[in-house]
């Protein structure tokens, strides 16, 4: 007799216009099993899962639930059938409490907010072994708490099949471990789990089987126990890929950018960066690690001149840059590229063409009243060729490019300007392996050319391989600057949560202050 699957997808096809997002995809999960869905950006993972959760409808093919064919026409259908999805971007109402967020989508709850909802939901969460306060408002929650709430929500609605779209992208190492415990427990209680992720080490750690998609096509499903990172990457990319990140050793220069006692407030007026010291030399990559929202954004904005600082010094090659306009900071050769969660918010004008985006920082330099699009087009073509950007033409709106290509346009422009300091935040956010490595190569090339790079990242494995030194922030304070080749993920994780403070590791040298600083020197000159 055939094995019973909790859910099975047979020959699923889905296209958007002439673009086929899914071609003849087969997928199945047993109850009590964790299936990892692996694929590069744009390989159709999310599209496929959206068809399970009722957001899209397949053009052809069938979906079987416990061996019976079903039609999922809407998210309500999916909910009724016991399919729950935890999206990458949480679908929560910020001003509601945890319990109300769950109550909101419950068909049986009726129109009245009953007083006992806190108890009902609190008890239910406890039953599954979750630790959440049902009265806590979502806007007061940390990212990991929000995610827990999303999981509790789908469980409360009675989901037997749970889909998680890149759940670890926003979590620290410790939080990821906790999430995996939860997943294993749910697996133990007979739930079928599908997890989408880019991170191979996590796939190997958590899943029972791995299904691989490449450019919308179903490649194969393999047992996790019988595979490895190298093989999975080959399935995913379609050819052999070198999985090592280079860390070239380069002659370092004197500090290019020095930050002293820097304090910055965030939009709400709270201290976002608290008396921070650090410096970047030419020819090195300084990583910045920290949980989301620990002041990285404010730091980047302050260096680029987009956010006023509270107090402290920012010295570039011995010159003060505090209070300069974004434009004059650009002219000094400091480039900042920040990839926000939506990937398009800062640094690019999404509806405008690649050419126009290339011109963004220099449109004013040409003579006369007109924008010099001829040069812009030539440069756009150059960047497209050099970084292998996939785009129909230089006149295509950036919005229509895929994530990796959008980020290449942004970085390409920044590098084209010939900066001496690059501040880059999350340059590989959401990118697949291939595009990520292309970006690491670009950064390493800049480093070899003597550029100082501040790399704000999320993936600790990558940072340990790529960066020369890593600065760890926790609630806006520096917890220490460590040499990347001497540290470990566990150490960084402890520092990120504030459990370990290495700022006073060396007694002879205060953390974040260079021995050959240019600051003292310039002060002497003034005297």
């Amino acid at each position, binding site marked *: 007799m055939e094995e019973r699957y909790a859910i099975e997808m047979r020959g699923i096809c889905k296209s958007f216009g002439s673009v086929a997002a899914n071609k003849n995809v087969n997928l199945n999960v047993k109850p009590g099993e964790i299936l990892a869905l692996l694929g590069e950006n744009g390989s159709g993972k999310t599209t496929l899962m959206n068809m399970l959760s009722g957001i899209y409808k397949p053009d052809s093919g069938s979906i079987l639930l416990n061996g019976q064919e079903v039609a999922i026409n809407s998210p309500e259908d999916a909910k009724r059938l016991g399919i729950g999805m935890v999206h990458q971007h949480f679908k929560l109402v910020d001003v509601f409490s945890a319990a109300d967020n769950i109550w909101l989508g419950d068909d049986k709850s009726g129109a009245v907010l009953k007083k006992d909802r806190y108890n009902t939901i609190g008890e239910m969460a406890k039953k599954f072994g979750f630790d959440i306060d049902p009265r806590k408002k979502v806007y007061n929650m940390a990212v990991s708490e929000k995610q827990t709430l999303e999981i509790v929500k789908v469980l409360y609605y009675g989901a037997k099949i749970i889909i998680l779209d890149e759940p670890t992208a926003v979590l620290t190492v410790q939080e990821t471990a906790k999430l995996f415990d939860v997943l294993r427990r749910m697996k133990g209680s007979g739930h079928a789990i599908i997890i989408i992720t880019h991170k191979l080490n996590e796939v190997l750690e958590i899943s029972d089987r791995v299904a691989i998609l490449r450019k919308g096509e179903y490649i194969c499903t393999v047992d996790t126990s019988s595979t490895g990172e190298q093989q999975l990457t080959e399935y995913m990319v379609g050819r052999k890929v070198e999985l090592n990140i280079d860390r070239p050793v380069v002659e370092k220069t004197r500090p290019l950018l020095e930050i002293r006692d820097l304090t910055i407030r965030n939009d709400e007026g709270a201290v976002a960066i608290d008396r921070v010291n650090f410096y970047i030399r030419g020819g090195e990559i300084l990583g910045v690690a920290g949980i989301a929202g620990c002041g990285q954004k404010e730091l980047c904005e302050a260096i680029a001149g987009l956010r006023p600082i509270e107090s402290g010094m920012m010295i570039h090659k011995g010159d003060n840059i505090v209070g300069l306009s974004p434009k004059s900071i650009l002219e000094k050769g400091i480039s900042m590229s920040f990839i926000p969660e939506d990937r398009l*918010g800062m640094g690019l004008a999404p509806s405008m063409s690649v050419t126009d985006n290339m011109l963004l920082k220099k449109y004013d330099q040409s003579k006369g009243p007109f924008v010099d699009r001829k040069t812009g087009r030539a440069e756009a073509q150059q960047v497209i060729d050099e970084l292998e950007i996939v785009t129909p033409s230089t006149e295509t709106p950036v919005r229509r490019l895929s994530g990796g290509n959008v980020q290449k346009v942004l970085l390409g422009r920044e590098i084209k300007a010939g900066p001496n300091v690059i501040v880059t935040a999350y340059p590989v956010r959401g990118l697949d392996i291939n595009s990520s490595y292309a970006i690491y190569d670009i950064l390493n090339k800049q480093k070899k050319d003597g550029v100082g790079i501040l790399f704000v990242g999320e993936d600790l494995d990558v940072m340990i391989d790529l960066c020369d030194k890593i600065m760890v922030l926790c609630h806006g304070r520096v917890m220490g600057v460590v040499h990347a080749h001497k540290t470990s993920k566990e150490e960084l994780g402890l520092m990120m949560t504030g459990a370990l403070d290495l700022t006073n590791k060396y007694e002879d040298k205060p953390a974040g202050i260079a021995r050959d600083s240019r600051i003292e020197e310039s002060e002497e000159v003034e005297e």
Partner: protein
Amino acid sequence: MKNRQPLFHVVKRDHAGPGRQAAAYVAAVVLALLVGAVLLMVQGVEPVTFYKQLLTMGIPGSRYPWRSVENFIKLFVPLLITSMALALAFKMRFWNIGGEGQFIMGAFWAGFAAMKLGGTLPQPLMVVVMALCGALGGGLYGVFVAALKVKWGTNETLLTLMLNYVALYFLQYFAETKTDWNFFLDPDSARPKFAKFPANAQMITIPIGPFNLNLSLVIAAVLCVLLYIYLNYTKRGYEIAVVGDSPNTARYAGMKVGKIVIRTIFLSAALIGLAGAFQVSSAGILSTSVTNDVGWTGVVVAWLAKLNMVGIVVASLLITVLQFGCQTASTTYPSIDANFANLLQGVILFIVLAADFFTRFRLARTRKEAAK
């Protein structure tokens, strides 16, 4: 498991080319006219002859065909300039729906100049002075809102909307207050009534045979070309596009966003004020219904044209033909009045929006085997 299966579902289309899009729009207009035909038949009006009269605007067979064209231009120019000016603001995602107010202010200050200086200046100079007064009056009225937005982040939609009524009542005050100091009114009339402008405050016309070409049409055409170049090729136009697309990116690129907003809105509102000045100097008299609703219609035109200058010329021509044609046609049909033009305009807008949807999506029949 029993499941209800909808017959159709929406599927995305490939990006449609400009030819296909144009075809969709033409089809939409035709469809709207068909809807209009049904409405006409319900009222016992024969649609073919009505549309014939509407589209020819009563020109054939008229004893003064050129007079019709002149009147048509008087209706067309204010709408064209206003729509272009609104598109300028919309391109920056500044929702200026205060075209009415800015237009009234332009007309008012042009009228002010006409009544105060009317007898003293030669006609060309007088027209220039009126145009400048109108542009400045409208421009300052608009820039007030832009400055508040830049300074305190106020909502421009609400403010421009409310200032429309302020401007209207301001003008009405002068229209209805019969006192000695109110030089706007006709001193010979016992009831309050706007006075005619002196002859040298009338818009210049260029005689071509029996036809008098209104100078404002020439200026509007020139403005159209200039704005097209401004938006698409100059640095200032580039800035507008970036600020509209993402103000954060603009700031990041070192642009002074506040300055750009104020400059652009001044330009937009000043152009609308200019349209107001042209309107009153062509009419030769102020009126409380001076705007002919161009502040509203202009919003429709700008969006129908997707803020594209060429599209704006076409759309404002179409709307003016409808309005002017309905006016002339309604003289033969007592049951139809100019409101029918507004109705058709609304139907066209809706169907064009639907056509726009169908250039991007299509309905696909849900296949049986998938539905089983």
